[in-house]
């Protein structure tokens, strides 16, 4: 068995009596793509907040490989190898698409190390590769603020790819996308598969079938089930709690 990339161990958070995430334990193997499923308000985003340091947990631990990153400041968690895409796409709006990727390409985060001009040929070609992968070549000189919703999502994905974290957290990367856009996003994510360990929140079952290996279902802040796509689709508890109301589409 390969190494465990991400360990979430008994993680909980208490928002003044309300446990949005309650005693959640998940292990994700190196190179695995894990889908996090769950109804609105199940605690998926909160779980990502806890892992990436945006919210401090009140109980439990998080490890990236062997490093205990529980409740570290965000930038240190990022440096430890966790990258994150937000549910509401967030990019640097007043920078060009290329600059957005270049910022993600500054490997040494210290101020003094970045007091220099330009990028090496290797660094530049890396940015070009990601522009091609995300299909943003034509927009490379455009201000990120002027991108369409889908393009903004791809740019953020591109920044993650350039950043090259060991573990990638993706929060609803296809939210608000057209079918064509969703398909392209699946392509990009499939391209990441194997090279990164990925934890992705997704609602679109078609999309999930296209990318998923294993699924973890979250319900009311707790892990309800875990298994392959078929296991989950057949699981009566899941049908009752989450899929029953809407059915699997």
């Amino acid at each position: 068995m390969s190494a465990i990339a991400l360990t979430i161990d008994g993680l909980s958070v208490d928002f003044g009596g309300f446990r949005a995430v309650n005693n959640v334990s998940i292990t994700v193997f190196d190179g695995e793509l894990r889908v996090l499923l769950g109804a609105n308000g199940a605690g998926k985003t909160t779980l990502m907040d806890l892992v990436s340091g945006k919210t401090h947990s009140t109980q439990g631990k998080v490890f990236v490989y062997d490093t205990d990153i529980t409740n570290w400041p965000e930038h240190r968690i990022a440096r430890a190898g966790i990258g994150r895409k937000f549910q509401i796409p967030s990019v640097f709006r007043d920078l060009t698409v290329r600059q957005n990727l270049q910022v993600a390409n500054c490997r040494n985060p210290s101020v003094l190390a970045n007091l220099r001009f330009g990028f090496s040929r290797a660094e530049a070609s890396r940015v070009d590769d990601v522009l091609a992968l995300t299909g943003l070549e034509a927009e490379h000189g455009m201000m990120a603020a002027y991108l369409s919703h889908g393009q903004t999502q791809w740019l953020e994905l591109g920044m993650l790819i350039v950043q090259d974290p060991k573990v990638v957290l993706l929060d609803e990367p296809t939210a608000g996308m057209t079918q064509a856009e969703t398909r392209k996003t699946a392509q990009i994510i499939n391209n990441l598969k194997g090279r990164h360990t990925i934890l992705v929140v997704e609602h679109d079952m078609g999309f999930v079938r296209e990318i998923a290996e294993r699924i973890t279902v979250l319900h009311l802040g707790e892990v309800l089930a875990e298994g392959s796509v078929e296991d989950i689709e057949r699981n009566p508890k899941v049908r009752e709690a989450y899929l029953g109301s809407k059915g699997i589409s």
Partner: protein
Amino acid sequence: MSIERKFQIAAYMLFIAVIFAAPVFGDEFWLNRISKYLVYGMLGVAIALTWGYAGILNLGQGLFFGLGAYMLAMSLKLSSLTSLQQGSDRPVPDFMLWNAEPGAPTELCCINKGSFLWLPFQSQSVGLVLGIVLPVVIAGALGMLVFRKRISGVFVSIITLALVLLVRLVMVDAQPVTNGFNGLTDLGWLTIGGIEFDPYSRATYYLCAACLSLTLIGARLIVETRAGMILQAIRDDHVRARYLGFDVSLYQVFFFVISAGIAGVAGMLYVVVAEFASPTFMDLSFSVTMVVWAAVGGRSSLLGACIGAILINMIEAEVSETEALVEAWKAIIGLIFVLVVLFMPRGLGGVAHDVLRWFVRRRKLGKAFPALPQQSEAL
């Protein structure tokens, strides 16, 4: 290199050439006045650096300007003739004697309780060095406190605003050491390497022009570095920047400190040119005025903010020649500010940028259809 890039470099070079050529056009009094405006130009750059590039609106930039000014003014006060004529072998500021307790020794060490603070300033180098070091250290400490706590936006503005008012109060209150409301007047001349900087001389003007040019070029270069780009990224979305692994507060502190250092140097130059330092430098209105200069000139354009500062002051000087307009000036500048904020939020620099882009696009169109006769004629 893109046309826009070439144009930018040309604009900087042209500006620097103009300020260095200016002494040909006026007498010494005019030159002295323009020197002050160049100093204001430095303040414009300092504001644009934090406001435009870091999204930090410092409403207390006058603090760093004032500290720089006072540090050098203390040294220059001690090298003035009057300070040497107070009946001691060594210089003592005249105002300390006016208020001295009867029987107090006429010595810096002990004429009053705080006068010993002046001892190091007998050397001009101390004033010069502290004029930049003190603003930098205070900005660093303040920045660490504020940005580490992730205070941002309007709260930073309020804190800086409160701090400049607080320090102003202390400066006025510490009358025995600072001469309170009256500030430090009757100063000697700055002397560096045998050159005396007579405030009405070309040497002093060139000193200001050189400092402004270096500030402009230096600031421009530093925002062109990767760190400058990361700073702008942080301005746009500090959360995103954090998740890319950047320690956001360090970048903010770094550029905040640079801005404070520029303001400190500007404060020193102002003292050399105007021959006084006063608590009015730390008036709220002065700090707000700087922000207006930068807004009109274009907060995201270093050169724009600099030219904004100089232009507004030139206009103000013209206007105040006319008796009737003197009173109205505050209203006029207020109106200009409102209009700029409403109709050209990126200021003059933004307008210049748009005009340039328009020309570039036209030229590209012209090149794309060279066969069209009217178009090539139009170019």
